[in-house]
């Protein structure tokens, strides 16, 4: 009992600490960085567009301008929505990654750990095979991803408990199983195989305002949901029994964090395909900057994830014009070595 009181005091301290001036500064720097990235990304591309034309396209829609109509269209209808989607997905995956890492108490956890990507891939493959409209492919992928997550949760359940280890193993097993079905579909439906493969590599090229409009609410809700469990996520590393004795409903926390993270991840995958490494690496980077307190970790992860995916996508669409390479390739190429670096650093 005494122990519990001591822990509670310590926790309150962490709560107060999370708005130390140093950490506010990090948030401000990230916000400025994000704004600068957006401006630069708007002007970079296959067609070079001056920053003044970018400003005009964004701020003064009705003014007669010196910039060409084509440039204005490119900025307004192609790059701007795409950049928003990059921010949304980057932030979403990073928050989901932070949530999953906190939940699993495992640095290797990422948003896809419970087989969500495999479920979404299966859903998308089915959508492509039946030649559904891209919107419906996304919808099927989202539904399949959520179903996968719920399936894994119920498989991992033993009595009233969901041991994290079971969750992990069930996720892997279900993931492999669903991937096998996807592969079978790809093998049999050769005509659609290219679409499926490209989708699996992740791309933001179909982003437009309508898509953004439909996609925005789900990850926003999920992100808010994960954030409200920041305190519980801070306590979970102490061990489940310890957390229980501090009056935290561990099972409920697990369930909600899993559901909210899944909502974010499933909607991200549905919008942009499977983009790896952002959700894995960003929380680790942020932990190096601001420490492990989830109240700061989650918003900072969102900001840094947005910046990272925005730059990855800018590289993806500018590096070999007129082709756009899949953004998932860029994040993995950059994120892989960086993750190894983090691991090596941690060993020392």
């Amino acid at each position: 009992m005494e122990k519990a009181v001591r822990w509670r005091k310590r926790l309150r301290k962490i709560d107060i600490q999370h708005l130390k001036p140093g950490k506010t500064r990090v948030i401000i720097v990230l916000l400025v960085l994000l704004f600068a990235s957006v401006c630069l990304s708007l002007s970079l591309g296959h067609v070079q567009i001056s920053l003044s034309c970018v400003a005009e396209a964004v701020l003064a829609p009705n003014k007669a301008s010196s910039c060409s109509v084509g440039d204005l269209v490119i900025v307004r209808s192609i790059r701007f929505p795409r950049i928003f989607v990059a921010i949304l997905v980057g932030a979403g995956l990073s928050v989901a990654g932070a949530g999953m890492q906190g939940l699993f108490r495992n640095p290797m956890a990422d948003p896809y750990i419970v087989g969500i990507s495999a479920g979404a891939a299966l859903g998308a493959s089915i959508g492509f095979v039946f030649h559904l409209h891209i919107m419906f492919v996304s919808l099927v992928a989202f539904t399949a991803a959520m179903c996968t997550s719920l399936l894994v949760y119920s498989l991992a359940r033993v009595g009233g408990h969901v041991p994290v280890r079971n969750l992990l193993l069930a996720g892997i097993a279900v993931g492999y199983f669903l991937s096998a079905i996807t592969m079978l579909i790809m093998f049999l439906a050769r005509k659609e195989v290219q679409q499926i493969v490209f989708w699996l590599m992740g791309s933001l090229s179909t982003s437009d305002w309508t898509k953004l409009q439909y996609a925005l609410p789900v990850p926003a809700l999920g992100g808010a949901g994960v954030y409200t469990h920041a305190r519980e996520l801070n306590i979970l590393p102490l061990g489940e029994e310890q957390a229980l004795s501090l009056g935290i409903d561990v099972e409920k926390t697990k369930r909600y964090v899993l559901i909210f993270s899944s909502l974010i991840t499933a909607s991200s995958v549905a919008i942009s395909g499977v983009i790896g490494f952002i959700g894995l690496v960003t929380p680790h980077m942020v932990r190096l900057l601001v420490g492990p307190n989830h109240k700061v970790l989650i918003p900072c992860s969102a900001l840094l994830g947005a910046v990272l995916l925005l730059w990855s996508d800018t590289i993806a669409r500018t590096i070999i014009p007129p082709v756009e390479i899949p953004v998932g390739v860029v994040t993995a190429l950059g994120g892989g070595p960086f993750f190894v670096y983090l691991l090596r650093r941690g060993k020392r």
Partner: protein
Amino acid sequence: MLGLDHKPWLLILTITLATALLGCVSQPGDPLPTQKTTKPWLTIEDDLGREIIIENPPNRIVSTAPSNTEIVFAVGAGDKLVGRTDQCDQPEEAKKVDSIGPYWGPSIETIVAKQPDVVLTTGEETTRKNLIEPLASRGITVVALSPATIDDVLRDIEMVAKIVGTTETAKRVLQQIETKRAEVRGRVSTLREEERKSVLLIWWFGNEIWTSNGVFANNIVEEAGGKNVNLGFTGYSMISKEALLKVDPDVILYPDDMLGGKSFYNLLSSDDALKHLSAVKNHTKKCPTVIPIDANLLSRPGPRVAIALEEVSRGLYPELYGKSCPVAKKIEKN
């Protein structure tokens, strides 16, 4: 790994066994009964530059591409065809011939079982590896047809006719093609250089946009009076929406099966960005500038090449074919 460290002999044994087994499966020096002294019936060079010796006039032909099947029927050797692919649906009689599997992956076993005298394949790198080499190593005569231009198609028709011994029939076929070709050329030649429209072929529009440059269909466009927009590559490639807006073609051509029969114009005009393309703005029901073309005509370098040529030309310049369409002006783009 640990297990192997303890028992290195096991590893060695496994490797030895595996090597021995592999040796049994593929004996590269398999002698083939090719050293006959009698003079072969015909020696030709196929589109991959391979010297092909054809011993006797073939009676059993297998085609591994729809365009090849069409050629075989056109030169009057359809009755000798004993194998075709699932996609070979032209002419109607072709469907009666047994299938050897889909175009993208025909079954080698089925082909061999047909005991063909000649197999007519295409010439892509994958075909060479997966089809030509395995068949040739079994002693089957393979001729690769890989035409990239209309002239190539004519030459290939002639070559197939030579192989099956129907050069007279082929002459008539070639004559018909040349007549139609000359007619199209005659109409198009009245165009001034600045009246020629820039054309983009879009093969696929979905998560990616696929287009081509320098392939057979582009050659048809060129000869039909259009100018292929230059995107800086040859072959098939993806392009971004931005690049599409930048090149802004006068006309967009697409295979009619691309969207499962749905109108590509409707799709483009509902896209926030692509509705600003000239081809979309100038499009009218009577004089379309986003034009579907029979997918089989566009992608099959076969005897219907002249029909393809006329369809494309008619689409690009309806005014040359007696339709009253305004000679489209490019919308001012500042």
